[in-house]
């Protein structure tokens, strides 16, 4: 519903001057950059904001309780912050209000904006110089998402990737061979066509078509598979208007407009319910959806299909824990907690409890790792698929606008409103304008 969401006039003038001086964060964004290992005795408790719910929230709390009983002088207060979707707004507002947390879970896409926050703790030295931390043990995609302009701004909290999830029964019924890790785009397109039955309102594939990053990142995976890039290596000009970019849009056009084998989801997540109801045969989705697949649906997971002469690259969307400075003592506790929480053994416990993918490569070598695989058979391919994450989206300030421009192009092609070439050209000139303006 509607929000609502004189002395006042004099006070307003005074406050106004004060406010405009304060702005959002105050001061230049130097950040706090600890160079010592921050392994002092714990003297301060901290607050951690997260958007976990349900199973993940319980798993987090269990581990936090364990830490708290072992470290009574450095307790962690884990607080639900109203959900991850609004975490950035909430944290931003908290800097203004002064009640910001010591640690906050943030989307990877928020790291660029928060990187300029003066209260952020710059972790670059810490991750490189802390013994046994093994920064390179984290998967490459995570490390790229946690880094802005060479500065490490967060520690990986969650990662995922896109793989092909399919309904075994629908394949059986249609007599189509099930997907394999070696599938090509052609195999994929043919299967989708054969699994589409317009009379039964059944579709071979579903694509989220709301113009948001959800629309873009699937396209980006296809772009990378063909050897393309979103931007040039210096991030100054668009590079997606290449043959790789064009062939990806062409496939989307062929499947959605020519074959009509694609269900276009409006962003409300109906594709999953339809998958559960046997109306969609294949999805390109991540591990988070596995727990929402009903038990009566027999599904399989494979790598994404590759274009001819291309690779099975996929895309990942890591989230991070970011540390904000109140005092050295608090940052000391925060760093030690996060170090512990993301250590291989503890992370494995979290993964076993939640089904979230392991954050570190070494986790897959631990003896109890098999427990994870046994409990979540669907996750095996997702973990292997992490090796197919070779690229990351540019972590620059103008990325959200660039994404929006590309999203429009993809949306237009899927709706049949533009042909791939003109959509691509239009997006390219928009992105040129964006990059030129954002000096």
């Amino acid at each position, binding site marked *: 519903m509607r929000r609502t969401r004189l002395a*006042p006039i004099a006070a*307003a003038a005074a406050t106004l001057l004060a406010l405009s001086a304060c702005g959002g964060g105050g001061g*230049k964004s130097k950040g706090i950059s600890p160079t010592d290992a921050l392994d002092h005795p714990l003297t301060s408790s901290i607050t951690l904001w997260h958007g976990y719910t349900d199973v993940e929230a319980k798993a987090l709390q269990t581990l936090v309780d364990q830490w708290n009983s072992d470290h009574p002088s450095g307790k962690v207060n884990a607080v639900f912050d109203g959900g991850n979707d609004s975490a950035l707004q909430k944290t931003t507002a908290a800097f203004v209000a002064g009640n910001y947390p010591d640690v906050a879970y943030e989307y990877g896409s928020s790291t660029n904006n928060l990187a300029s926050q003066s209260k952020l703790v710059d972790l670059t030295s810490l991750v490189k110089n802390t013994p046994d931390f093994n920064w390179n043990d984290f998967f490459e995609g995570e490390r790229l998402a946690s880094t802005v302009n060479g500065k490490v701004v967060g520690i990986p909290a969650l990662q995922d990737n896109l793989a092909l999830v399919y309904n075994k029964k629908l394949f059986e019924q249609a007599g189509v061979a099930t997907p394999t890790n070696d599938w090509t785009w052609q195999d994929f397109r043919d299967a989708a066509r054969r699994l589409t039955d317009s009379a039964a309102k059944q579709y071979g594939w579903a694509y989220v078509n*709301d113009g948001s990053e959800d629309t873009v990142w699937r396209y980006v995976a296809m772009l990378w598979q063909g050897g393309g890039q979103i931007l040039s290596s210096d991030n100054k000009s668009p590079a997606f208007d290449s043959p790789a970019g064009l062939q990806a849009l062409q496939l989307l056009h062929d499947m959605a407009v020519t074959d009509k084998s694609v269900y276009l989801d409006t962003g409300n997540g109906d594709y999953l319910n339809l998958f559960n109801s046997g109306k969609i045969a294949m999805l390109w989705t991540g591990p988070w959806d596995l727990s929402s697949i009903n038990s009566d649906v027999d599904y399989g997971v494979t790598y994404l299909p590759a274009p001819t002469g291309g690779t099975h690259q996929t895309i990942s969307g890591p989230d991070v824990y970011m540390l904000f400075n109140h005092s050295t003592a608090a940052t000391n506790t925060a760093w030690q907690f996060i170090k512990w929480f993301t250590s291989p053994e503890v992370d494995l416990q979290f993964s076993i409890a939640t089904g979230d993918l392991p954050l570190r490569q070494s986790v897959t070598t631990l003896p109890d790792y098999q427990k994870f695989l046994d409990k979540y058979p669907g996750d095996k391919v997702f973990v292997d698929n992490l090796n197919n994450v070779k690229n990351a989206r540019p972590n620059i300030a103008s990325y*959200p606008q660039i994404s929006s421009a590309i999203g429009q192009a993809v*949306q237009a092609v899927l709706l049949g409103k533009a042909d791939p070439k003109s959509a691509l050209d239009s997006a390219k000139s928009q992105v040129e304008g964006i990059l030129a303006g954002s000096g």
Partner: protein
Amino acid sequence: MTVAVAHRRPPRRVLPSGGRRARRADQLAGWAMASPAVFFIGLFGLVPLVWSFVLSFQHSNFQTSPTWAGLSNYRALTHDPVFWQSVRQTLLYTVLFVPITLIGSLLVAAALNRKIRGITVYRLAVFVPVVTSTVATGVIFGWLLDPNYGVVNSLLEKAGLPAQGFFTSTREALFCIVGMTVWGWLGFGTLIFLAGLQSVPKELLEAAAIDGCTRRRAFWSVQVPQLRPVSAFLVVWLTINALQLFDEVYVTTKGGPLHASTVVVYYLYQQAFQFFHAGYAAAIAYVLFVAILALTLGELWLTRRLDRDRAS
């Protein structure tokens, strides 16, 4: 047949008798009674308003100190095709939403202003959309209007009509949002009109009855004119809200497809919280503010003019 009591002089300020002392007393009384409201609204409404106005002349990403931008945000707005598209679409939305909701509410209130059995249930039903969360409303309308699996399209197909794209169609998306918001606001308008109808002084209706007036005549000649201040309020209130449409777009189309349902506040939200152009968003807000203020003042002036014309 005329209803003698129907002609009323429009409400006017009461001049206290008693000359200067009474007028002085009124000055004090007026300010005394209005001050608490003025203070709170001033503090929490006016101060942020002015602050945001300053922000519109700055570049800010919320995290670092803003830098001075002068008029560049406003200048950029004039070249922004998506902004102008959002303006057109917002105006189109408002021009549809306000009259439909206003007249619809009046009719429904009239229908509900009677003592038939079960009227409480109907009144409750009308009020329910006001209480239903926007999220739930978005989900339901998304399902009902789904192009493939929705109820509405299957009914259309059964009737031999072509299936529509609704939220996925660039031509229809905005109209679907009109429908959804009229549905959501009808109860609000009805509530206000019901209160207005119930406030009609009994003597007027009795006099009308004695004059031999039918119910329908009485409605249009006695009750509706009494509703003028309330109607004026509703027009202004609905307009202010229509021009600031956001929630329903956010939970359904997210401004799409291809900006077809992008309205000004949604665009503002994108600029502020997705692209981190806080100053630009504030500039958009202020252009909107000027438009709303102008429209509101226009509507207020118009109703006063109509009142005065009626009196003569």
